[in-house]
Protein backbone atom coordinates (compact mmCIF):
# COMPACT_ATOMS: atom_id res chain seq x y z
CA UNK A 1 0.00 0.00 0.00
CA UNK A 2 1.77 3.08 -1.19
CA UNK A 3 -0.59 5.64 0.32
CA UNK A 4 1.47 8.63 1.53
CA UNK A 5 -0.14 10.53 4.39
CA UNK A 6 1.19 13.23 6.63
CA UNK A 7 1.65 12.26 10.23
CA UNK A 8 -0.92 14.76 11.51
CA UNK A 9 -3.77 13.36 9.46
CA UNK A 10 -5.90 10.89 11.37
CA UNK A 11 -7.49 8.20 9.27
CA UNK A 12 -9.13 6.03 11.85
CA UNK A 13 -12.31 5.42 9.92
CA UNK A 14 -10.52 4.47 6.73
CA UNK A 15 -8.30 2.12 8.68
CA UNK A 16 -11.39 0.56 10.16
CA UNK A 17 -12.92 0.06 6.78
CA UNK A 18 -9.76 -1.48 5.36
CA UNK A 19 -9.36 -3.79 8.34
CA UNK A 20 -12.95 -4.89 8.18
CA UNK A 21 -12.61 -5.71 4.50
CA UNK A 22 -9.31 -7.50 4.96
CA UNK A 23 -10.27 -9.58 7.95
CA UNK A 24 -13.33 -11.11 6.31
CA UNK A 25 -11.56 -12.34 3.23
CA UNK A 26 -8.29 -13.78 4.42
CA UNK A 27 -7.10 -16.05 1.65
CA UNK A 28 -4.76 -18.68 3.02
CA UNK A 29 -1.67 -19.98 1.30
CA UNK A 30 -1.55 -23.56 2.60
CA UNK A 31 2.14 -24.28 3.05
CA UNK A 32 1.24 -27.82 4.07
CA UNK A 33 4.20 -30.10 4.57
CA UNK A 34 3.08 -32.88 6.90
CA UNK A 35 0.32 -34.18 9.14
CA UNK A 36 -1.12 -30.74 9.90
CA UNK A 37 -1.83 -30.38 6.21
CA UNK A 38 -4.38 -33.17 6.46
CA UNK A 39 -6.06 -31.43 9.39
CA UNK A 40 -6.03 -28.23 7.35
CA UNK A 41 -7.85 -30.15 4.62
CA UNK A 42 -10.26 -31.41 7.26
CA UNK A 43 -10.96 -27.88 8.46
CA UNK A 44 -11.72 -26.78 4.92
CA UNK A 45 -13.98 -29.73 4.10
CA UNK A 46 -17.53 -30.64 4.96
CA UNK A 47 -17.76 -30.91 8.73
CA UNK A 48 -15.81 -27.87 9.89
CA UNK A 49 -16.21 -25.64 6.84
CA UNK A 50 -13.69 -22.82 7.13
CA UNK A 51 -15.73 -20.93 4.54
CA UNK A 52 -17.99 -19.67 7.30
CA UNK A 53 -15.16 -17.34 8.31
CA UNK A 54 -14.16 -16.16 4.87
CA UNK A 55 -11.01 -18.23 4.59
CA UNK A 56 -12.00 -21.06 2.32
CA UNK A 57 -10.35 -19.66 -0.80
CA UNK A 58 -7.07 -21.54 -0.57
CA UNK A 59 -4.78 -20.39 -3.31
CA UNK A 60 -1.63 -22.26 -4.07
CA UNK A 61 0.09 -19.34 -5.65
CA UNK A 62 1.56 -16.95 -3.09
CA UNK A 63 0.76 -13.92 -5.23
CA UNK A 64 -2.95 -14.25 -4.47
CA UNK A 65 -2.79 -14.86 -0.74
CA UNK A 66 -2.93 -12.87 2.47
CA UNK A 67 -2.07 -15.40 5.13
CA UNK A 68 0.48 -18.16 4.96
CA UNK A 69 -0.45 -21.19 7.06
CA UNK A 70 2.69 -23.20 7.72
CA UNK A 71 1.26 -26.61 8.55
CA UNK A 72 3.80 -29.21 9.52
CA UNK A 73 7.47 -29.47 10.26
CA UNK A 74 9.95 -27.63 8.10
CA UNK A 75 13.15 -29.47 7.30
CA UNK A 76 16.49 -27.92 6.32
CA UNK A 77 15.90 -28.38 2.64
CA UNK A 78 12.53 -26.63 2.88
CA UNK A 79 13.56 -23.41 4.67
CA UNK A 80 14.75 -21.52 1.56
CA UNK A 81 11.53 -22.54 -0.20
CA UNK A 82 9.46 -21.25 2.70
CA UNK A 83 11.31 -17.95 2.82
CA UNK A 84 10.96 -17.43 -0.87
CA UNK A 85 7.23 -18.11 -0.80
CA UNK A 86 6.85 -15.70 2.12
CA UNK A 87 8.74 -13.00 0.24
CA UNK A 88 6.60 -13.55 -2.84
CA UNK A 89 3.35 -12.82 -1.03
CA UNK A 90 2.05 -9.26 -1.49
CA UNK A 91 1.51 -6.92 1.45
CA UNK A 92 -0.37 -6.91 3.74
CA UNK A 93 0.37 -10.50 4.77
CA UNK A 94 0.28 -12.56 7.91
CA UNK A 95 1.63 -15.91 8.96
CA UNK A 96 0.00 -18.64 11.05
CA UNK A 97 2.33 -21.27 12.44
CA UNK A 98 0.11 -24.33 12.73
CA UNK A 99 1.08 -27.14 15.05
CA UNK A 100 3.87 -27.89 17.45
CA UNK A 101 6.39 -28.78 14.76
CA UNK A 102 6.10 -25.51 12.88
CA UNK A 103 6.13 -23.50 16.10
CA UNK A 104 8.93 -25.22 18.01
CA UNK A 105 10.06 -28.33 16.19
CA UNK A 106 7.73 -30.44 18.32
CA UNK A 107 8.82 -34.01 18.86
CA UNK A 108 11.38 -33.75 16.10
CA UNK A 109 14.42 -32.41 17.89
CA UNK A 110 16.77 -33.82 15.26
CA UNK A 111 19.57 -32.70 13.01
CA UNK A 112 17.40 -31.82 10.05
CA UNK A 113 14.27 -30.20 11.49
CA UNK A 114 14.12 -26.47 12.06
CA UNK A 115 13.25 -25.72 15.68
CA UNK A 116 10.48 -23.24 14.99
CA UNK A 117 9.86 -21.31 11.80
CA UNK A 118 9.92 -18.03 13.73
CA UNK A 119 13.70 -18.20 13.61
CA UNK A 120 13.54 -17.53 9.90
CA UNK A 121 10.27 -15.74 9.09
CA UNK A 122 7.98 -13.55 11.23
CA UNK A 123 4.93 -15.30 12.70
CA UNK A 124 1.68 -13.68 13.86
CA UNK A 125 -0.35 -16.53 15.35
CA UNK A 126 0.90 -19.80 16.84
CA UNK A 127 -1.45 -22.77 17.07
CA UNK A 128 -0.54 -25.47 19.60
CA UNK A 129 -1.38 -29.14 19.15
CA UNK A 130 0.04 -32.10 17.30
CA UNK A 131 -1.81 -31.71 15.07
CA UNK A 132 -4.25 -28.98 16.14
CA UNK A 133 -7.90 -29.84 15.83
CA UNK A 134 -9.82 -28.06 13.09
CA UNK A 135 -11.56 -25.98 15.76
CA UNK A 136 -8.16 -24.63 16.76
CA UNK A 137 -7.41 -23.68 13.17
CA UNK A 138 -10.68 -21.79 13.03
CA UNK A 139 -9.83 -20.14 16.35
CA UNK A 140 -6.47 -19.07 14.92
CA UNK A 141 -8.17 -17.47 11.94
CA UNK A 142 -10.55 -15.65 14.29
CA UNK A 143 -7.62 -14.47 16.43
CA UNK A 144 -5.87 -13.20 13.37
CA UNK A 145 -9.04 -11.35 12.37
CA UNK A 146 -9.12 -9.76 15.82
CA UNK A 147 -5.45 -8.79 15.51
CA UNK A 148 -6.08 -7.17 12.14
CA UNK A 149 -9.11 -5.33 13.49
CA UNK A 150 -7.18 -4.01 16.48
CA UNK A 151 -3.84 -3.10 15.02
CA UNK A 152 -4.19 -2.94 11.28
CA UNK A 153 -3.68 0.22 9.24
CA UNK A 154 -4.50 0.95 5.65
CA UNK A 155 -0.89 1.56 4.61
CA UNK A 156 0.55 -1.18 6.75
CA UNK A 157 2.41 1.14 9.18
CA UNK A 158 2.34 -1.52 11.88
CA UNK A 159 4.72 -3.71 9.88
CA UNK A 160 7.37 -1.02 9.45
CA UNK A 161 8.12 -1.05 13.18
CA UNK A 162 8.95 -4.73 13.17
CA UNK A 163 12.56 -4.44 12.08
CA UNK A 164 14.15 -6.75 14.63
CA UNK A 165 14.44 -10.51 14.68
CA UNK A 166 11.34 -11.89 16.41
CA UNK A 167 12.32 -15.48 17.07
CA UNK A 168 13.60 -17.06 20.26
CA UNK A 169 16.89 -15.82 21.67
CA UNK A 170 20.26 -17.57 21.79
CA UNK A 171 19.90 -19.63 18.70
CA UNK A 172 22.68 -22.07 19.43
CA UNK A 173 22.04 -22.16 23.18
CA UNK A 174 20.62 -25.65 23.12
CA UNK A 175 23.95 -27.13 22.05
CA UNK A 176 26.94 -27.42 24.27
CA UNK A 177 29.60 -24.96 22.98
CA UNK A 178 32.12 -27.76 22.66
CA UNK A 179 29.75 -29.58 20.33
CA UNK A 180 29.22 -26.64 18.01
CA UNK A 181 31.34 -26.58 14.93
CA UNK A 182 30.92 -24.40 11.93
CA UNK A 183 29.13 -26.94 9.84
CA UNK A 184 30.80 -27.72 6.55
CA UNK A 185 27.42 -27.42 4.94
CA UNK A 186 27.10 -23.72 5.70
CA UNK A 187 23.74 -22.96 4.25
CA UNK A 188 23.96 -19.20 4.60
CA UNK A 189 26.74 -19.16 2.07
CA UNK A 190 25.91 -22.48 0.49
CA UNK A 191 25.22 -22.79 -3.16
CA UNK A 192 21.47 -22.73 -2.86
CA UNK A 193 21.29 -19.10 -1.78
CA UNK A 194 24.50 -17.82 -3.32
CA UNK A 195 23.93 -15.58 -6.28
CA UNK A 196 20.18 -15.59 -5.82
CA UNK A 197 18.66 -12.35 -4.60
CA UNK A 198 16.43 -12.88 -1.56
CA UNK A 199 13.64 -10.74 -3.01
CA UNK A 200 12.41 -11.83 -6.36
Amino acid at each position, binding site marked *: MALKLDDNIFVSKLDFLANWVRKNSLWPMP*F*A*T*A*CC*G*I*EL*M*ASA*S*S*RYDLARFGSEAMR*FTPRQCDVMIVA*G*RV*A*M*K*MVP*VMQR*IWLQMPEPKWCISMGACASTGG*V*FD*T*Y*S*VVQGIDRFIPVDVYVPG*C*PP*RPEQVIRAVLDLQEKIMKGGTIDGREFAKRTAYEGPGDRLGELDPSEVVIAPGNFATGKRLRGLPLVN
Partner: protein
Amino acid sequence: MPLEAVASVDETGTDKEFLYTLNFGPQHPATHTTLRLILTLDGETIVKAQPDIGFLHSGFEKLGEDLDFNQYVTIVDRMNYVSPVANEIAWHHTIEKLMGLDITPRCKYIRTILAELARIGDHLLCVGAVALDLGGLTAFLYAFNERERIYDILENASGQRFHPSYTRVGGLINDVNDLFVSQVRAFVKSFPKAHGDVCRLLNKNKIFIDRTQGVGTLTREEAINRSCTGPVARASGVARDLRKDEPYLAYPELQSSFKIVCSNGGDCLARYLVRMGEMLESVNIIAAAIENLPSGPVNIGTDSKVVIPDKSATYRSIEGLIQHFELFMWNRRFETPVNEVYGANETANGELGFYVVSDGSAKAWRARTRPPSFIHFALFPHLIEGHQISDVPAVLGSLNIIAAELDR
Protein backbone atom coordinates in the same frame (compact mmCIF):
# COMPACT_ATOMS: atom_id res chain seq x y z
CA MET B 1 0.38 -47.81 -23.70
CA PRO B 2 3.06 -45.21 -23.08
CA LEU B 3 3.64 -42.95 -26.02
CA GLU B 4 6.96 -42.98 -27.81
CA ALA B 5 9.28 -40.33 -26.51
CA VAL B 6 10.09 -38.05 -29.40
CA ALA B 7 13.54 -37.04 -28.29
CA SER B 8 16.23 -38.32 -26.00
CA VAL B 9 18.26 -36.44 -23.45
CA ASP B 10 21.82 -36.85 -22.36
CA GLU B 11 23.08 -36.66 -18.78
CA THR B 12 22.56 -32.94 -18.47
CA GLY B 13 19.23 -33.02 -20.20
CA THR B 14 19.96 -30.08 -22.44
CA ASP B 15 21.43 -31.35 -25.67
CA LYS B 16 18.28 -30.55 -27.60
CA GLU B 17 17.51 -26.88 -27.74
CA PHE B 18 13.77 -27.28 -28.13
CA LEU B 19 13.46 -29.15 -24.85
CA TYR B 20 12.67 -27.10 -21.81
CA THR B 21 12.73 -27.77 -18.11
CA LEU B 22 9.82 -27.38 -15.76
CA ASN B 23 10.28 -27.31 -12.03
CA PHE B 24 7.33 -28.98 -10.34
CA GLY B 25 7.16 -28.45 -6.60
CA PRO B 26 8.27 -28.67 -3.83
CA GLN B 27 5.27 -26.54 -2.92
CA HIS B 28 2.68 -27.47 -5.50
CA PRO B 29 -0.97 -28.41 -4.92
CA ALA B 30 -0.84 -31.54 -7.08
CA THR B 31 2.00 -33.06 -5.12
CA HIS B 32 -0.11 -32.76 -1.92
CA THR B 33 3.11 -33.03 -0.04
CA THR B 34 6.63 -31.75 -0.37
CA LEU B 35 8.40 -33.35 -3.25
CA ARG B 36 9.99 -31.88 -6.30
CA LEU B 37 10.10 -33.05 -9.88
CA ILE B 38 12.38 -31.66 -12.55
CA LEU B 39 10.62 -32.40 -15.79
CA THR B 40 12.27 -32.11 -19.19
CA LEU B 41 9.57 -31.43 -21.72
CA ASP B 42 9.15 -31.60 -25.44
CA GLY B 43 6.03 -29.54 -25.86
CA GLU B 44 3.70 -31.20 -23.41
CA THR B 45 5.36 -34.59 -23.53
CA ILE B 46 7.63 -35.53 -20.67
CA VAL B 47 10.96 -36.73 -21.97
CA LYS B 48 12.67 -37.09 -18.65
CA ALA B 49 11.53 -36.79 -15.06
CA GLN B 50 13.94 -36.41 -12.20
CA PRO B 51 12.49 -36.60 -8.71
CA ASP B 52 14.15 -34.64 -5.94
CA ILE B 53 13.06 -35.66 -2.47
CA GLY B 54 14.09 -35.07 1.11
CA PHE B 55 12.13 -31.88 1.72
CA LEU B 56 10.56 -33.44 4.78
CA HIS B 57 13.47 -35.50 6.02
CA SER B 58 13.15 -35.32 9.79
CA GLY B 59 15.44 -38.00 11.15
CA PHE B 60 12.82 -40.56 12.21
CA GLU B 61 15.29 -43.41 12.26
CA LYS B 62 17.77 -41.44 14.35
CA LEU B 63 14.98 -40.73 16.82
CA GLY B 64 14.18 -44.44 16.88
CA GLU B 65 17.63 -45.04 18.33
CA ASP B 66 17.02 -42.46 21.04
CA LEU B 67 13.51 -43.35 22.27
CA ASP B 68 12.37 -46.62 23.78
CA PHE B 69 9.90 -48.98 22.17
CA ASN B 70 6.89 -47.39 23.82
CA GLN B 71 7.97 -43.81 23.22
CA TYR B 72 8.86 -44.30 19.58
CA VAL B 73 5.25 -45.12 18.78
CA THR B 74 4.46 -41.40 18.84
CA ILE B 75 7.06 -40.84 16.12
CA VAL B 76 5.97 -43.82 14.04
CA ASP B 77 2.47 -42.29 14.07
CA ARG B 78 3.72 -39.36 12.09
CA MET B 79 5.23 -41.51 9.39
CA ASN B 80 2.25 -42.25 7.20
CA TYR B 81 0.03 -39.54 8.61
CA VAL B 82 -2.96 -40.58 6.55
CA SER B 83 -3.34 -43.85 8.43
CA PRO B 84 -1.33 -43.39 11.65
CA VAL B 85 -2.74 -46.27 13.63
CA ALA B 86 -1.59 -48.81 11.03
CA ASN B 87 2.00 -47.68 11.54
CA GLU B 88 1.74 -48.15 15.30
CA ILE B 89 0.38 -51.65 14.86
CA ALA B 90 3.22 -52.52 12.47
CA TRP B 91 5.84 -51.14 14.85
CA HIS B 92 4.60 -52.97 17.89
CA HIS B 93 4.04 -56.09 15.81
CA THR B 94 7.79 -56.08 15.14
CA ILE B 95 8.71 -55.36 18.75
CA GLU B 96 6.46 -58.14 20.02
CA LYS B 97 8.05 -60.47 17.50
CA LEU B 98 11.47 -59.45 18.76
CA MET B 99 10.49 -60.06 22.36
CA GLY B 100 8.51 -63.19 21.61
CA LEU B 101 5.27 -61.92 23.12
CA ASP B 102 1.87 -63.28 22.17
CA ILE B 103 -0.81 -60.64 22.68
CA THR B 104 -4.31 -61.42 23.92
CA PRO B 105 -7.15 -62.34 21.50
CA ARG B 106 -9.14 -59.20 22.36
CA CYS B 107 -6.14 -56.99 21.61
CA LYS B 108 -5.62 -58.80 18.31
CA TYR B 109 -9.19 -58.14 17.25
CA ILE B 110 -9.15 -54.49 18.29
CA ARG B 111 -5.88 -53.94 16.45
CA THR B 112 -7.30 -55.66 13.39
CA ILE B 113 -10.37 -53.44 13.40
CA LEU B 114 -8.26 -50.32 13.79
CA ALA B 115 -5.83 -51.40 11.06
CA GLU B 116 -8.69 -51.95 8.66
CA LEU B 117 -10.29 -48.62 9.57
CA ALA B 118 -6.93 -47.00 8.88
CA ARG B 119 -6.77 -48.74 5.53
CA ILE B 120 -10.22 -47.44 4.60
CA GLY B 121 -9.24 -43.93 5.67
CA ASP B 122 -6.04 -44.02 3.66
CA HIS B 123 -7.75 -45.31 0.52
CA LEU B 124 -10.51 -42.73 0.92
CA LEU B 125 -8.05 -39.87 1.02
CA CYS B 126 -6.09 -41.31 -1.90
CA VAL B 127 -9.19 -41.75 -4.06
CA GLY B 128 -10.58 -38.37 -3.04
CA ALA B 129 -7.31 -36.62 -3.78
CA VAL B 130 -7.00 -38.25 -7.21
CA ALA B 131 -10.52 -37.10 -8.00
CA LEU B 132 -9.72 -33.62 -6.69
CA ASP B 133 -6.63 -33.34 -8.86
CA LEU B 134 -8.48 -34.55 -11.91
CA GLY B 135 -11.23 -32.01 -11.43
CA GLY B 136 -13.90 -33.62 -9.25
CA LEU B 137 -14.28 -31.87 -5.91
CA THR B 138 -17.41 -33.72 -4.81
CA ALA B 139 -15.79 -37.13 -4.42
CA PHE B 140 -13.20 -35.52 -2.14
CA LEU B 141 -15.91 -34.09 0.10
CA TYR B 142 -17.74 -37.43 0.27
CA ALA B 143 -14.49 -39.17 1.13
CA PHE B 144 -13.61 -36.69 3.85
CA ASN B 145 -17.05 -37.05 5.38
CA GLU B 146 -16.38 -40.76 5.92
CA ARG B 147 -12.90 -40.03 7.23
CA GLU B 148 -14.48 -37.86 9.92
CA ARG B 149 -16.43 -40.91 11.11
CA ILE B 150 -13.19 -42.88 11.37
CA TYR B 151 -11.66 -40.01 13.32
CA ASP B 152 -14.62 -40.13 15.70
CA ILE B 153 -14.05 -43.83 16.34
CA LEU B 154 -10.34 -43.27 17.00
CA GLU B 155 -11.02 -40.31 19.23
CA ASN B 156 -13.42 -42.33 21.32
CA ALA B 157 -10.95 -45.20 21.61
CA SER B 158 -7.77 -43.28 22.34
CA GLY B 159 -8.57 -39.65 23.07
CA GLN B 160 -6.79 -38.21 20.04
CA ARG B 161 -8.49 -38.00 16.70
CA PHE B 162 -5.45 -37.87 14.47
CA HIS B 163 -2.36 -39.40 16.03
CA PRO B 164 -3.76 -41.80 18.59
CA SER B 165 -0.50 -43.44 19.84
CA TYR B 166 -2.81 -46.18 20.96
CA THR B 167 -0.69 -49.32 21.03
CA ARG B 168 1.87 -50.29 23.65
CA VAL B 169 4.24 -53.21 23.91
CA GLY B 170 2.02 -56.14 24.81
CA GLY B 171 -1.31 -54.47 24.31
CA LEU B 172 -3.09 -51.17 24.13
CA ILE B 173 -3.08 -48.07 26.27
CA ASN B 174 -6.65 -48.83 27.36
CA ASP B 175 -9.58 -51.01 26.46
CA VAL B 176 -12.37 -49.86 24.19
CA ASN B 177 -15.85 -49.11 25.49
CA ASP B 178 -19.36 -50.00 24.34
CA LEU B 179 -19.64 -46.80 22.34
CA PHE B 180 -16.71 -48.00 20.22
CA VAL B 181 -18.62 -51.14 19.32
CA SER B 182 -21.76 -49.26 18.37
CA GLN B 183 -19.78 -46.66 16.41
CA VAL B 184 -17.97 -49.35 14.44
CA ARG B 185 -21.27 -51.15 13.76
CA ALA B 186 -22.80 -47.90 12.54
CA PHE B 187 -19.78 -47.29 10.31
CA VAL B 188 -20.00 -50.77 8.82
CA LYS B 189 -23.65 -50.12 8.06
CA SER B 190 -23.25 -46.66 6.58
CA PHE B 191 -19.97 -47.00 4.71
CA PRO B 192 -21.15 -49.05 1.70
CA LYS B 193 -23.59 -46.28 0.83
CA ALA B 194 -20.86 -43.63 0.82
CA HIS B 195 -18.63 -46.02 -1.13
CA GLY B 196 -21.41 -46.42 -3.67
CA ASP B 197 -21.73 -42.64 -3.96
CA VAL B 198 -18.04 -42.28 -4.78
CA CYS B 199 -18.28 -45.19 -7.24
CA ARG B 200 -21.23 -43.61 -8.99
CA LEU B 201 -19.38 -40.33 -9.26
CA LEU B 202 -16.17 -41.76 -10.70
CA ASN B 203 -16.46 -45.27 -12.08
CA LYS B 204 -18.33 -44.29 -15.24
CA ASN B 205 -17.14 -40.71 -15.37
CA LYS B 206 -15.79 -40.18 -18.88
CA ILE B 207 -13.29 -37.52 -17.89
CA PHE B 208 -11.95 -39.56 -14.99
CA ILE B 209 -11.59 -42.73 -17.07
CA ASP B 210 -9.97 -40.94 -20.00
CA ARG B 211 -7.41 -39.41 -17.72
CA THR B 212 -6.53 -42.58 -15.85
CA GLN B 213 -6.93 -45.47 -18.30
CA GLY B 214 -3.67 -46.49 -19.93
CA VAL B 215 -1.72 -43.90 -17.96
CA GLY B 216 1.34 -45.00 -16.02
CA THR B 217 1.22 -48.68 -16.93
CA LEU B 218 3.32 -51.05 -14.83
CA THR B 219 3.72 -54.67 -15.86
CA ARG B 220 3.85 -57.57 -13.45
CA GLU B 221 7.55 -58.29 -13.96
CA GLU B 222 8.48 -54.64 -13.45
CA ALA B 223 6.36 -54.45 -10.33
CA ILE B 224 8.24 -57.39 -8.80
CA ASN B 225 11.64 -56.27 -9.98
CA ARG B 226 11.09 -52.78 -8.61
CA SER B 227 9.99 -54.06 -5.18
CA CYS B 228 6.37 -52.91 -5.37
CA THR B 229 3.90 -54.10 -2.77
CA GLY B 230 0.36 -53.32 -1.77
CA PRO B 231 -2.27 -51.93 -4.12
CA VAL B 232 0.34 -50.84 -6.65
CA ALA B 233 1.62 -54.39 -7.06
CA ARG B 234 -1.84 -55.93 -6.87
CA ALA B 235 -3.08 -53.63 -9.63
CA SER B 236 -0.30 -55.08 -11.78
CA GLY B 237 -1.34 -58.64 -11.14
CA VAL B 238 0.93 -59.62 -8.24
CA ALA B 239 -1.44 -61.58 -6.02
CA ARG B 240 0.44 -60.94 -2.81
CA ASP B 241 -1.07 -59.70 0.41
CA LEU B 242 0.62 -60.23 3.76
CA ARG B 243 -2.78 -60.64 5.39
CA LYS B 244 -3.15 -63.86 3.39
CA ASP B 245 0.48 -64.88 2.90
CA GLU B 246 1.80 -64.30 6.40
CA PRO B 247 -1.34 -63.85 8.51
CA TYR B 248 -0.81 -61.88 11.67
CA LEU B 249 -3.11 -60.43 14.37
CA ALA B 250 -6.63 -61.81 13.97
CA TYR B 251 -6.35 -62.41 10.23
CA PRO B 252 -5.83 -66.19 10.52
CA GLU B 253 -9.31 -66.46 11.99
CA LEU B 254 -10.85 -63.98 9.56
CA GLN B 255 -9.48 -65.53 6.36
CA SER B 256 -12.93 -66.48 5.11
CA SER B 257 -14.27 -62.93 5.32
CA PHE B 258 -12.07 -61.29 2.74
CA LYS B 259 -10.44 -61.75 -0.64
CA ILE B 260 -7.41 -60.18 -2.28
CA VAL B 261 -8.39 -57.57 -4.83
CA CYS B 262 -6.21 -57.75 -7.93
CA SER B 263 -6.21 -56.40 -11.42
CA ASN B 264 -4.20 -57.02 -14.55
CA GLY B 265 -4.50 -53.48 -15.84
CA GLY B 266 -1.47 -51.98 -14.14
CA ASP B 267 -2.54 -48.43 -14.96
CA CYS B 268 -3.89 -45.61 -12.79
CA LEU B 269 -7.47 -46.77 -13.31
CA ALA B 270 -6.57 -50.27 -12.12
CA ARG B 271 -4.91 -48.87 -9.01
CA TYR B 272 -8.02 -46.78 -8.32
CA LEU B 273 -10.31 -49.80 -8.78
CA VAL B 274 -8.13 -51.99 -6.56
CA ARG B 275 -8.31 -49.40 -3.79
CA MET B 276 -12.09 -49.11 -4.14
CA GLY B 277 -12.40 -52.89 -4.01
CA GLU B 278 -10.15 -53.19 -0.98
CA MET B 279 -12.30 -50.79 0.98
CA LEU B 280 -15.30 -53.10 0.65
CA GLU B 281 -13.19 -56.09 1.68
CA SER B 282 -11.97 -54.14 4.69
CA VAL B 283 -15.54 -53.41 5.72
CA ASN B 284 -16.23 -57.13 5.57
CA ILE B 285 -13.26 -57.80 7.85
CA ILE B 286 -14.42 -55.14 10.31
CA ALA B 287 -17.96 -56.52 10.29
CA ALA B 288 -16.71 -60.02 11.05
CA ALA B 289 -14.24 -58.84 13.68
CA ILE B 290 -16.59 -56.60 15.61
CA GLU B 291 -19.23 -59.35 15.90
CA ASN B 292 -16.62 -61.83 17.12
CA LEU B 293 -14.81 -59.45 19.46
CA PRO B 294 -13.56 -61.68 22.29
CA SER B 295 -13.88 -60.63 25.90
CA GLY B 296 -10.99 -60.65 28.33
CA PRO B 297 -8.04 -58.39 28.99
CA VAL B 298 -6.39 -56.28 26.27
CA ASN B 299 -2.96 -56.43 27.83
CA ILE B 300 -0.89 -59.50 28.49
CA GLY B 301 -0.35 -60.25 32.17
CA THR B 302 1.68 -57.88 34.29
CA ASP B 303 3.95 -60.79 35.29
CA SER B 304 5.49 -60.49 31.82
CA LYS B 305 7.17 -57.29 33.10
CA VAL B 306 6.59 -55.42 29.87
CA VAL B 307 3.10 -53.95 30.06
CA ILE B 308 2.40 -50.71 31.84
CA PRO B 309 0.09 -51.42 34.81
CA ASP B 310 -3.12 -49.44 34.84
CA LYS B 311 -3.38 -46.44 37.08
CA SER B 312 -5.44 -48.08 39.80
CA ALA B 313 -2.80 -50.80 40.20
CA THR B 314 -0.04 -48.20 40.26
CA TYR B 315 -1.68 -46.18 42.98
CA ARG B 316 -3.14 -48.97 45.12
CA SER B 317 -0.67 -51.86 45.07
CA ILE B 318 3.01 -52.13 45.76
CA GLU B 319 3.58 -54.53 42.84
CA GLY B 320 1.93 -52.14 40.41
CA LEU B 321 3.98 -49.22 41.72
CA ILE B 322 7.22 -51.14 41.42
CA GLN B 323 6.44 -52.25 37.93
CA HIS B 324 5.46 -48.75 36.89
CA PHE B 325 8.80 -47.41 38.07
CA GLU B 326 10.70 -50.31 36.56
CA LEU B 327 9.20 -49.45 33.19
CA PHE B 328 9.69 -45.70 33.39
CA MET B 329 13.11 -45.32 34.98
CA TRP B 330 15.57 -44.65 32.22
CA ASN B 331 18.12 -47.22 33.39
CA ARG B 332 15.64 -50.09 33.97
CA ARG B 333 12.75 -50.53 31.51
CA PHE B 334 12.58 -53.95 29.88
CA GLU B 335 15.07 -56.44 28.62
CA THR B 336 15.12 -57.69 25.07
CA PRO B 337 17.01 -60.46 23.28
CA VAL B 338 20.27 -59.31 21.68
CA ASN B 339 19.29 -60.04 18.11
CA GLU B 340 17.67 -58.54 15.09
CA VAL B 341 14.30 -59.11 13.50
CA TYR B 342 12.24 -57.97 10.56
CA GLY B 343 8.50 -57.65 10.95
CA ALA B 344 6.10 -56.42 8.34
CA ASN B 345 2.43 -55.56 8.10
CA GLU B 346 0.23 -54.97 5.12
CA THR B 347 -0.72 -51.33 5.44
CA ALA B 348 -2.79 -49.35 2.99
CA ASN B 349 0.20 -48.34 0.90
CA GLY B 350 1.95 -51.68 0.87
CA GLU B 351 4.29 -53.63 3.04
CA LEU B 352 5.40 -51.50 5.97
CA GLY B 353 8.27 -53.29 7.61
CA PHE B 354 10.67 -52.55 10.43
CA TYR B 355 14.11 -54.05 10.77
CA VAL B 356 14.92 -53.73 14.45
CA VAL B 357 18.36 -54.42 15.87
CA SER B 358 18.35 -54.73 19.63
CA ASP B 359 21.31 -54.56 21.97
CA GLY B 360 19.39 -55.92 24.93
CA SER B 361 18.04 -52.61 26.19
CA ALA B 362 14.61 -51.07 25.70
CA LYS B 363 15.86 -48.88 22.88
CA ALA B 364 16.42 -50.07 19.37
CA TRP B 365 20.02 -50.03 18.21
CA ARG B 366 18.67 -49.50 14.74
CA ALA B 367 15.06 -49.04 13.71
CA ARG B 368 15.08 -49.33 9.97
CA THR B 369 11.76 -48.66 8.24
CA ARG B 370 10.82 -50.19 4.94
CA PRO B 371 8.70 -47.35 3.61
CA PRO B 372 6.31 -48.30 0.78
CA SER B 373 5.98 -44.70 -0.42
CA PHE B 374 9.72 -44.38 -0.92
CA ILE B 375 9.87 -47.53 -3.00
CA HIS B 376 6.81 -46.61 -5.04
CA PHE B 377 8.02 -43.12 -5.76
CA ALA B 378 11.18 -44.55 -7.29
CA LEU B 379 8.86 -45.89 -10.00
CA PHE B 380 7.62 -42.48 -10.93
CA PRO B 381 10.12 -41.54 -13.69
CA HIS B 382 9.52 -44.93 -15.26
CA LEU B 383 5.75 -44.49 -15.21
CA ILE B 384 5.56 -40.91 -16.42
CA GLU B 385 8.13 -40.71 -19.20
CA GLY B 386 6.43 -40.40 -22.55
CA HIS B 387 3.19 -39.13 -21.07
CA GLN B 388 1.72 -35.64 -21.03
CA ILE B 389 2.28 -33.13 -18.28
CA SER B 390 -1.38 -33.33 -17.25
CA ASP B 391 -0.86 -37.00 -16.40
CA VAL B 392 1.52 -36.13 -13.55
CA PRO B 393 -1.23 -35.61 -10.95
CA ALA B 394 -2.98 -38.81 -12.01
CA VAL B 395 0.15 -40.94 -11.62
CA LEU B 396 1.27 -39.23 -8.41
CA GLY B 397 -2.18 -39.61 -6.90
CA SER B 398 -2.50 -43.25 -7.87
CA LEU B 399 0.82 -44.11 -6.21
CA ASN B 400 -0.39 -42.34 -3.04
CA ILE B 401 2.92 -40.78 -2.04
CA ILE B 402 2.99 -39.63 1.58
CA ALA B 403 5.94 -37.32 2.07
CA ALA B 404 6.59 -38.10 5.72
CA GLU B 405 6.93 -41.77 4.87
CA LEU B 406 8.87 -40.96 1.72
CA ASP B 407 11.51 -38.91 3.50
CA ARG B 408 11.24 -39.95 7.14
